[in-house]
């Protein structure tokens, strides 16, 4: 365990010094929130009883931030480390392999929790979106299932990414359309029913719904949505265990 903390400490240093990682994981969601709030800020979104657009976008951007901190950050950083030969080098030391992965997952979870706090604080301070203090247990339950599942999916995704150059393209080609179709960028009341039906096959939509319910509706945990997210996570875990590689692609023969 102390070895995991040792690894996490260095992963955190490297993360915060990496301008690309900090921009896309921390700055980019904040910028998106500011843009959406500015463009749609005076509108009301029909979610049944009608809420302010800002109250809609705060949990939406937190959802995006968590996925970005976990799935996207893990897939990017593991592919880079693998192709650099750093995963292989680590395998040559007495450190157990799982410690390396655990350190990276820990790094993602730390960033995800920070982003939850940061976006919630910006929502409250600038747009007056109340922070649901009474819902902390529900929020943490949703966050835990979501972060774990999207971490597994991020590790699984590395198996499909051949090189460092391909990493950002493949990850964004998967995530960006799903953010649109899942109602993260465009309020779901504006999306045709068929689009939502399609998005419901994927974990992002369900994670967003569970998070939105816990954040805005003050309702109990949406276990049905979380079950879909967890099922995706378990599938990712199975793929990761079977197909994750420690050696650069050029090395395999």
């Amino acid at each position: 365990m102390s070895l995991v903390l040792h690894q996490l400490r260095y992963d955190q240093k490297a993360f915060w010094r990496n301008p690309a990682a900090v921009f896309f994981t921390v700055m980019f969601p904040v910028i998106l929130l500011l843009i959406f709030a500015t463009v749609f800020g005076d509108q009301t979104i029909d979610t049944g009883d009608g809420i302010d657009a800002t109250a809609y976008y705060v949990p939406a951007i937190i959802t995006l931030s968590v996925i970005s901190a976990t799935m996207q950050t893990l897939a990017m950083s593991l592919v880079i480390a693998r192709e650099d030969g750093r995963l292989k080098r680590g395998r040559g030391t007495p450190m157990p392999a799982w410690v390396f992965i655990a350190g990276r997952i820990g790094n993602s979870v730390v960033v995800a929790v920070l982003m939850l706090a940061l976006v919630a604080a910006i929502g409250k301070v600038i747009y007056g979106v109340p922070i649901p203090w009474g819902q902390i247990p529900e929020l943490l339950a949703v966050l835990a299932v979501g972060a774990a599942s999207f971490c597994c999916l991020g590790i699984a995704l590395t198996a499909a990414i051949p090189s460092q150059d391909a990493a950002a393209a493949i990850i964004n080609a998967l995530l960006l359309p799903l953010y649109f179709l899942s109602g993260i960028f465009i309020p779901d009341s504006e999306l045709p029913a068929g689009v939502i039906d399609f998005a419901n096959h994927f974990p992002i939509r369900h994670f967003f719904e569970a998070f939105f319910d816990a954040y805005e509706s003050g309702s109990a945990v949406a276990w049905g949505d979380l079950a879909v997210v967890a099922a995706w996570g378990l599938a990712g875990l199975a793929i990761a265990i079977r197909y994750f590689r420690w050696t650069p692609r050029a090395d395999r023969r």
Partner: protein
Amino acid sequence: MDSDPVISIRGLRKRYGDVEAVRGIDLEVQPGEVFAFLGPNGAGKTTTVEILEGYRKRDDGEVTVLGEDPERAGRAWRERIGIVLQSCRLDPYLTVRESLGLYAGYYSNPMSIEETIELAGLGGKANSRTGALSGGQQRRLDVGMALIGNPELLFLDEPTTGFDPSARRQTWETIAGLRDLGKTVFLTTHYMDEAQRLADRVAILVRGEVVARGTPEDLGDRENRPARITYRDAGREVQLETTNAVETLNELTGRALAEGLELEGLEVTRPSLEDVYLELTDQ
């Protein structure tokens, strides 16, 4: 030597599809020895060293490294070895000291970080990010990271390939320092001068087979190969090959004295390691 060899290989074979990369290698490396595995690209050097490091599985043969089979060796065995891979980039966002600190944490009895920085010749660079180091400096940090666990045995896979002469020389100094620490070193290289400069013993590997072995001095039986005598006669280059240099020289100089010849640029040379190497690898 009566102590057990650090590395012992018998009948090692490895095949990739139709290509037999390693075709029956036997060799032993003794404690405290710097052993160089010399050969052209594609000779099977990296395959062999990665089998010794436990990264690859062999098809046939017996391999023992520090008393264990690398395919089955565990964490305790990894405490005792250090590995410099042929190509591996460092985390560009960590400093030299942090990179060593990260790896020191993986071992139960690591070397001092400051001492390792000195050994790697990176004294002035301790707080530089690794992304800002030159290729030679990064390579010396690779050696430092392999050394930080205080291993008995270090593997260095082509430590200076692609370096300019001054970076090579500095990296050589760091590697030569490993011998002074009493480490056993297994080195692969395709540079003859590197083997000559660093190694106690050399094995030349060509197409998966060891074609010659020995100390750099007597490799390929250099002492018993014909010597070459060269001189200029009236501006014309003359070359003689002889197995008895003393006799031939005596004849030559006797005749020169008698006939008043100058024998300009007279030289007697033994085949260099490079000559032997080129001859062996050019079969």
